[in-house]
């Protein structure tokens, strides 16, 4: 247990990038100190730890220099704590597929949600929703192939893509409510819909995600800062 008290995580509750690191720390039963950052007034520690991007999450492990970028932090934790709940598979081809899809979710898929937010008017939003539907159907195929009939993208247990997409769910649910539509549904993405219910009630995830009030405030801030 000596390793487990040496971890500090600089983060902010509404960030799903931060949440995913928390999810992994919880899955691996690693204790950590959470340092809540005010993203409107970043601390000296954050600015010196991440001078390139000035962003959360930042992981500080013992006396090592900080580790940055959520996916990189997750791979680091997975390697150091490899014997507790492995996140990435050991097979090189499966690892490559996991990395490819995590990257897809973080770039293409996430960008569509940003586009949705920034597109004014119902007609415009409808067009973006069409693209989102196509992307969600693609992820349904990925789920079917990856899970191979089991509960998660990772198989019997939560894996890399489960962590990446699972933590994004809080934001997805917020967007669904705001726009009065469904991202995942019984017709287009039945397996993913079942998966969302499953992962949403996972013990290790519950602690990692923030409530809707924080998301509402975060959304409002984004509308002002990045309209």
């Amino acid at each position, binding site marked *: 247990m000596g390793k487990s008290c040496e971890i500090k995580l600089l983060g902010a509750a509404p960030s799903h990038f931060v949440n995913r690191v928390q999810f992994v720390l919880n899955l691996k039963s690693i204790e950590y100190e959470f340092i809540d950052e005010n993203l409107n007034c970043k601390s000296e520690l954050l600015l010196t730890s991440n001078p*390139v991007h000035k962003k959360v999450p930042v992981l500080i492990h013992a006396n090592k220099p900080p580790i940055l970028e959520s996916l990189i932090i997750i791979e680091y934790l997975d390697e150091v704590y490899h014997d507790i709940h492995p996140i990435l598979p050991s097979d090189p081809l499966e690892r490559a597929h996991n990395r490819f899809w995590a990257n897809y979710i973080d770039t293409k898929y996430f960008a569509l949600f940003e586009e949705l937010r920034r597109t004014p008017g119902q007609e415009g939003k409808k067009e973006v929703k069409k693209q989102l539907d196509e992307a969600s159907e693609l992820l349904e195929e990925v789920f079917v192939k990856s899970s191979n009939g089991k509960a998660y993208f990772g198989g019997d247990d939560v894996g890399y893509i489960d962590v990446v997409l699972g933590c994004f769910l809080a934001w997805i649910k917020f967007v669904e409510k705001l726009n009065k539509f469904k991202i995942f549904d019984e017709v287009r993405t039945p397996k993913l819909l079942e998966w969302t219910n499953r992962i949403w009630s996972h013990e290790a995830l519950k602690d990692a995600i923030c409530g809707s009030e924080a998301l509402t405030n975060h959304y409002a801030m984004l509308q002002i800062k990045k309209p």
Partner: protein
Amino acid sequence: MAEEVKLHSFRGSPYGCRVEIALNIKGIKYDFIQEDLNNKSPDLLKYNPVYKKIPVLVHNGNPISESVVIVEYIDDAWKGAPIMPVDAYEKARARFWAKFIDEKFIPAIFKAFVSHGEEQDILEANEQLQFLENELKVKGNKFFGGDNINLVDICAGYIAFWAGAAEEALGIEVVTRDKFPKLTEWCHNYTNCQVVKDNLPPRESLVAYYKWLFGKE
């Protein structure tokens, strides 16, 4: 079973070149399949339906896309000289710089080329370069990977060869070389590595291509 390794790419692509360098580091024999980017092969579209881009590595019929994902796959799948550091922390650091190069640096320098050297664009590209210069200074090594090249060197290869070709095509200087002595030295060391030298495209054709691409005929 005989191993089958194919690479769908385009001669001159910096991203395709990353994969070729990685394959060479491991001594892997492969078939190079030149793609016409205006008329992509049915195989390429089948192997990379999401992005429809090169490079795609096909290993025993299994396709892998995205250059950094491919390079890490090559390191995972084959023994031989390592491409990633062994230490978990150093791996994280290498991945960070590879991501920085792809998400921050290359878009910034590309913007400067597209604008034919707008002052603000050059400034921004140089700001990103400074981070890489500092990294080399701090480590004090020949390469980002130490005595040998690693993932970061492979990704930063763009600076060593492609940037210079684009500058020549446009008759501008974007990488203000006297500001970056460590990087300038690194460029020379990198392009002189055998595995790199063997895979660089002919400079003249690249300059001609960039003249066309950036609209400077």
